[in-house]
């Protein structure tokens, strides 16, 4: 089937991902529609990591031998690649963390501590109702600890940010505005730049959770308007255990250190220590070395395919899926219904069947989706539902897989004896 926008070499791309050859119980070929949860990994990422462990393994920046030099070089080269991938003005602004959650917690914690950007009583932090729990809870902790106030943008019925009260929400009391670029549940792409400009006009810093955006959109951190932007490696065809925090140099230099330990110091005396400059100031302890190296290979792979092309593919598949899902009686899609204003995650309800049961029946046909609250309980509550089923595509998803999903959903309805 040919749909405009699909990656022209889709079959070649699929061959890069060995797991897509998996045949599951009952002889069903894998239909992997859970990429917003974690993406699959191309052979080049797997090989790069194995090669590093087989031939170059050593600690970084502390080993005075040949392997140490090779390992340090590979690790720092990964930083260069990530910086180029997100168009960071400086490689030093790219900090490796464990994941996006750690990156957000790093920012929310250090903002509570003494420093130029310290958040205190009377200050306000603004988030949105469509955030992943990892962009809600750290800010709740920050505001509870400091006596600041947490406020948030509500959502419209079609799953977009309700910006009608932006002037009441973003005021001279606002110190931080933190929001997701692309919703992991509703798929909505938010007008980050517009909100960032308002936040900057009142002197607030802008934190962007780009966990779902970096996998799907061409990202230019400076153009986005963010002061801090975070994402995780495993959703961009990289490994787990590695996340990225990008921050404008001035902001990162104003924040106090997060974890103390090896690598993040300049010198240590018993009375007091001085700290390394960025990025090492925020990278205490032995970092996830092979994971960083794997992430470097992952973003290289995506660069090679081209993020414009990946985005076009996602939009084509999402449009095709939205159309197919409408054919299932009793199915309601949550979030915007036009593919152009959303990412590749589509959450839906199927009247009469609980999402767990939907996922179970689909799984028996080899179709992997996610069921539950997708770590976005407030967004579900906003739409009066407890949980939903979510399909999410990526650069390797085919229209035939969407057909299998739609057919699987028709089958689910008949399995649970729902009339048409």
């Amino acid at each position, binding site marked *: 089937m040919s749909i405009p926008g699909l990656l022209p070499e889709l079959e070649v791309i699929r061959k890069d991902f060995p797991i897509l050859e998996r045949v599951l119980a009952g002889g069903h070929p894998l239909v992997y529609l859970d990429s917003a949860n974690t993406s699959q990994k191309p052979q080049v990422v797997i090989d790069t990591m194995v090669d590093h462990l087989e031939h170059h393994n050593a600690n970084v920046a502390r080993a005075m031998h040949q392997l140490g030099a090779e390992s340090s070089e590979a690790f720092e080269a990964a930083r260069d690649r990530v910086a180029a991938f997100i168009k960071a003005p400086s490689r030093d602004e790219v900090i490796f963390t464990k994941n996006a959650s750690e990156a957000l917690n790093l920012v929310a914690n250090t903002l509570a501590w003494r420093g130029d950007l310290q958040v205190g009583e009377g200050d306000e932090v603004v988030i949105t109702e469509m955030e992943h729990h990892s962009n809600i809870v750290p800010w709740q902790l920050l505001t509870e600890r400091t006596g600041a106030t947490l406020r948030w943008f509500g959502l419209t019925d079609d799953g977009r940010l309700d910006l009608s009260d932006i002037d009441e929400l973003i005021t001279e009391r606002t110190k931080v505005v933190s929001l997701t670029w692309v919703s992991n549940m509703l798929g909505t792409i938010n007008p980050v730049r517009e909100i960032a400009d308002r936040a900057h006009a009142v002197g607030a810093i802008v934190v962007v959770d780009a966990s779902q955006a970096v996998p799907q959109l061409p990202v230019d951190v400076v153009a986005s308007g963010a002061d801090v932007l975070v994402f995780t490696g495993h959703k961009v065809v990289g490994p787990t255990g590695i996340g990225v925090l990008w921050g404008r140099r001035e902001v990162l230099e104003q924040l106090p250190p997060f974890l103390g330990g090896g690598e993040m110091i300049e010198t240590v005396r018993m009375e007091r220590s001085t700290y390394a400059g960025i990025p090492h100031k925020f990278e205490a302890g032995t970092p996830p070395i092979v994971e960083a190296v794997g992430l470097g290979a992952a973003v290289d792979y995506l660069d090679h395919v081209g993020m414009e092309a990946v985005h076009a593919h996602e939009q084509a598949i999402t449009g095709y899926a939205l159309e197919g899902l409408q054919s299932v009686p009793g199915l309601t899609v949550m979030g915007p219904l036009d593919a152009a204003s959303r990412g590749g995650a589509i959450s839906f309800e199927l009247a009469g069947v*609980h999402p*767990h*049961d939907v996922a179970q029946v689909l799984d028996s046909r080899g179709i992997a989706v996610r069921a*539950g609250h997708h770590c976005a309980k407030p967004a*579900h509550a906003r739409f009066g539902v*407890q949980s939903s089923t979510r399909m999410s595509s990526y650069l390797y998803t085919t229209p035939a897989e969407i057909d299998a999903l739609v057919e699987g959903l028709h089958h689910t309805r008949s399995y*649970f004896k729902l009339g048409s």
Partner: protein
Amino acid sequence: MDLDALYQEIILDHYKHPHHAGLRDPFEAEVHHVNPTCGDEVTLRVHLDDGVVRDVSYDAVGCSISQASTSVMTDLLIGKDVDEAMTIHQAFLELMQGKGQVEPDEDVLEDGIAFAGVAKFPARVKCALLSWMAWKDATTQTIEKEKA
């Protein structure tokens, strides 16, 4: 994967037509249990009198397995001595944690034996146990209150 082993007719029947649903008075303890991974929730009340489980009432949201399990549990436990109810609870727990290797006793578990297949689906065991854990919690609270 044998879907029919999981979704026995009895389970689907209880899911569509749950028994003893709704919250009722009187009760000695009310608990609220949540499965944090999927968000399934149950609010459950127990009414004990003279060592007998007089009523178990509930308001629950969740999948077919969790809803049917709640319904079957109320059928099994209402009217039983607390000690006997605890024995049934233990038998159901062992069945669910048995990874599909435990042969259920129909005399004890009645419709509950339909859940034997659930034990083979590790991701769904918590669904089946949600309200059973809530019942034990509420019952233990009630007994402790009586003692105090």
